């Protein structure tokens, strides 16, 4: 499903964020990417999301070469990858419902479809009863659920989560990870970038460890093993 082949990313003028990274992710996998701060995890996510383009190497998604993607195709790509960030990126003046609906609106979805899909995804993340609240009326965990609901709204094949629990306490973090697991259980590929040792260890899924832009380990049922 996702293939990185010898990918390097150099930020101008000379920050080598990724250095010859290669890996393959099969459909339906749940993969954690771990590494110290500045090791290049977010860069990896940005490349997959076509927010940055690789300096060298190729990135394939299905039979799509993202390293050579045309500008006009980027929106199409992004509707197939749901993204979740540490800071949620919700719009403060919109309710949970409106935040999720916004993703469909800007993609030109019919109003009837919006009315149908938005409550569905909000139900998946367990926020049916709070969908008319504004972000400031929601806890951090709930806000992140709204963000996940928004990521699900295009029924993406992949969920890309960059430190989704970075701002959350341990219990809430576990709930968010449980949610991602449930999403993974129904067949969505999940790529989780995280710092959280406990989460990674409890998961017993595949772990890719990056250090200074290089993959230093890639193991099924992995553990977090960084100093």
């Amino acid at each position: 499903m996702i293939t990185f082949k010898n990918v390097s990313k150099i930020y101008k003028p000379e920050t080598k964020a990724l250095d010859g990274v290669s890996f393959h992710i099969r459909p339906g996998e749940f993969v954690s990417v771990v590494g110290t701060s500045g090791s290049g995890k977010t860069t990896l996510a940005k490349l997959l999301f076509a927010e940055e383009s690789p300096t060298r190497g190729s990135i394939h998604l299905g039979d799509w070469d993202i390293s050579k993607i045309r500008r006009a195709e980027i929106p199409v790509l992004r509707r197939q990858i749901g993204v979740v960030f540490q800071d949620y990126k919700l719009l403060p003046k919109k309710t949970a419902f409106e935040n999720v609906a916004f993703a469909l609106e800007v993609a030109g979805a019919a109003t009837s479809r919006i009315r149908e899909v938005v409550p569905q995804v909000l139900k998946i993340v367990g926020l049916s009863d709070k969908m008319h609240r504004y972000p400031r009326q929601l806890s951090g965990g709930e806000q992140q659920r709204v963000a996940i609901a928004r990521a699900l709204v295009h029924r993406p094949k992949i969920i890309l989560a960059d430190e989704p629990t970075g701002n959350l306490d341990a219990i809430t973090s576990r709930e968010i990870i449980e949610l991602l697991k449930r999403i993974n259980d129904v067949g969505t590929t999940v790529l989780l970038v995280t710092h959280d040792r406990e989460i990674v260890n409890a998961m017993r899924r595949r772990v890719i460890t990056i250090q200074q832009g290089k993959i230093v380990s890639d193991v099924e049922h992995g553990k977090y093993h960084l100093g």
Partner: protein
Amino acid sequence: MRSVARLLKFAGQSVLRNFWLSFVTTSVLLLTLFTVNMLIVMNVLADATINSIEDKVQVEVYFNQGTSEDIQKSVHGYLAALPQVKDVAVISAADSLEAFRILHADDPEVLAALAEVGGNPIGDSLLISANNPADFEFILAALDSSPEYAPYIKEKNFADHQAVIDRLSDFSDQVRWGGLGLAGFFVLISVLIVFNTIRVAIYVHRDEIAVMKLVGAQDWFVRGPFLLEAVFYSAAATTIMAAICGFILKFLEPQIRSFFTGVDVSLTTYYWEKALLIFGAQFLALAALSMITTLFAMRKYLKI
């Protein structure tokens, strides 16, 4: 259709959310249109004034006393055949004398002199109107250089309207250039204000724009609202301008009329007949200007 409605919604939100900025932007666009319309009004008035004076310019050509009617007729025919000549009227010597008497009715000395001469010292004459006063030079030269007719012409009276007209057109040209300069100045201000407004709008919407890109909105969907916003300001300014013009014309036309007595000028008719054209063109020009400005602002500030 749906997308257009959403673009309109986003654009409308942007306009309302920065109300004061929208207000200032529309006002400056309005001022620009105001100068343009002043220019149009000046043009219409100046043209009407000059035309009405030009229409009054005539040259009178006097025949020598006793010039036969045949010759008079052929001169008449010759002049009437010139393409520059609009009209040639025959004025008999008796009519001329009568007109002269009336003109100098209050001037006993002149009348006494006339009586002393006895008879009618004034010959028959032709009154020539030209299509364009500038053509008189040509017409009179044609008459002078014609060996058949020149000998019969006693004198030509070219009332010196041309100097007045020249001065008037000089003045109206100056006003026109001044107006053009002012309009240009306001166009420049408009460009700067619209640029700034769109810059602020982009800044205010930076989170939305980021989310839009995140969830896979097409470029045109991100840009569309800002372009629509520019069109909206142009439409608002043009509409207000049209309303102001309508109002001014309705209430000021009588004053304008009495100021330009004898000049056939109807601004109302002018605007009424061409309202769609005048304001349509102004709207299109303004919308084009502000959209181009918006494109530049987006290029600089909307990194997508």
